[in-house]
């Protein structure tokens, strides 16, 4: 099947971007090099094309009820312009996807929500939303906007200055607090600008009309273009999860409590999976996602076995890399709860050889 392409695919290629298949999209993975891009975001600013992320808009009189029943967080806590991180779980409390839910600042008479499922999940999520809407007899609209909006992330300590300069109502945008959004005009385009991100740095995510993508991207001329390679190393240092890797509902079914994102679960709301999660919260989890750092030379990678000091396999690495900021080999792994405390000694099996590792508190990096 042909890969879907972001609106600036050709533009990225012109400046030397290399590409990868990500969730069915042909996305830039690297421009000047992962280390260069990573450092730009940690020390100054970088811009990512994340147009592969889905966008689904939910409106109508029962939009709040529908969102509340299908996401784990409490959407009624959102005022217009607020956003929240949430999980989408099945009846067993297993994470199907993670998402950011925005309550649109420019909503009509009733709240309108935009949520951002992971790449390639939007068809699945639209189906889930419409099926449940119909089953529950709710009056809500569910529209896939994925190919109507490009999405860019401007991230790093200097992001606020660049976004302020590029935006007509720059001072309003610069004063946004974390997880709030507003509408703004960038390069003549009406955009949703949110103070959110996936790098562990200050920054913004811009939801941009597809046809205006080039104009908005050009407004950040001089900002380091960054690919999904640097996005991965940055998010891992920040202890943020990657769908399909750190959780996958079929191959590695995990609940928010196991994945360390129990803060997204509001048990005083009614949602699919609530009862299972309440039971798990009472009983406690058997396994938890932890940060690990290799003490021996080597790099933990997705799929590598984790053992205890006796050599018994106790878990699997879900993500790993050489951290560009810390210059240490780091990773994430699910291990039994009794081995999840910081400083617990473990082993990671790298090419059949057990390497000494230690549990580290998450995040590895915090600005």
């Amino acid at each position, binding site marked *: 099947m042909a890969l879907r392409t972001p609106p600036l695919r050709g533009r990225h290629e012109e400046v*030397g971007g290399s590409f990868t298949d990500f969730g069915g999209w042909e996305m830039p*993975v*690297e421009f000047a*090099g*992962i*280390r260069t891009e990573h450092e730009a975001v940690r020390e100054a600013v970088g811009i990512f094309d994340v147009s592969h992320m889905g966008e689904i808009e939910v409106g109508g009189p029962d939009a709040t009820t529908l969102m509340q029943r299908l996401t784990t967080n409490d959407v009624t806590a959102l005022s217009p312009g607020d956003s929240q991180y949430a999980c989408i779980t099945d009846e067993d409390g297993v994470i199907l996807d993670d998402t950011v839910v925005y309550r649109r600042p420019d909503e009509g008479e009733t709240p309108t929500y935009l949520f951002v499922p992971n790449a390639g999940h939007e068809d699945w999520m639209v189906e889930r939303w419409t099926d449940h809407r119909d089953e529950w007899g709710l009056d809500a609209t569910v529209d896939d906007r994925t190919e109507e909006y490009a999405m860019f992330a401007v991230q790093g300590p200097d992001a606020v200055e660049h976004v302020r300069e590029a935006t007509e109502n720059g001072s309003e945008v610069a004063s946004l607090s974390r997880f709030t959004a507003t509408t703004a005009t960038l390069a003549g385009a009406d955009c949703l600008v949110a103070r959110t991100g996936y790098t562990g740095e200050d920054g913004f995510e811009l939801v941009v009309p597809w046809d205006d993508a080039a104009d908005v991207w050009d407004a950040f001329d001089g900002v380091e273009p960054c690919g999904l*390679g640097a996005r*991965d*190393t940055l998010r891992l240092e920040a202890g943020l999860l990657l769908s399909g890797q750190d959780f996958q509902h079929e191959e590695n079914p995990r609940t928010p409590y196991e994945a360390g994102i129990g803060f997204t679960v509001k048990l005083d709301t009614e949602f699919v999976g609530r009862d299972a999660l309440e039971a798990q919260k009472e009983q406690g989890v058997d396994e938890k996602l932890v940060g690990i750092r290799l003490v021996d*030379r*080597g*790099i933990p*990678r997705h799929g590598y076995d984790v053992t205890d000091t006796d050599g018994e396999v106790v878990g699997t690495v879900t993500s790993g*890399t*050489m951290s*560009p900021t810390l210059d240490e*080999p780091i990773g994430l792994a699910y291990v039994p709860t009794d081995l999840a405390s910081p400083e617990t000694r473990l082993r990671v099996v790298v*090419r059949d050889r057990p390497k000494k590792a230690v549990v580290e508190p998450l995040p590895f990096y915090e600005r």
Partner: protein
Amino acid sequence: MSFETPDDRKYNESHEWALRDGDTVRVGISDFAQDELGDVVFVELPDVGDEVAQGEAFGVVESIKAVSDVYAPVSGEVTAVNEALFDAPEQVNEDPFGDGWMLEIAAVDADELDELLTADEYVDQVA
């Protein structure tokens, strides 16, 4: 993008180079290969005294994003290993044909070098 491909050495299809110096063959990876890998952050090499066989993996190069085996262009005993790469693996990116070399092999059969690609043949392969 053009890559350096010095013609004083031979090349594996799998992107290693081999430079003969008497009975010894120095081995590294090509400019093209280091560029494809991206930032090299870890190199695993055999010990001096280990035997390697032509076409078989002798070590591993890891970039931030990927793990790649590296293959011996000739058979023989490892007589030297570039231990500087353990602390400075970025030399593979910065100087793949010089300071980024990986190991030296006492070749048991110098004719094996003849089976490798010339610089021109290698350029054709990666073009």
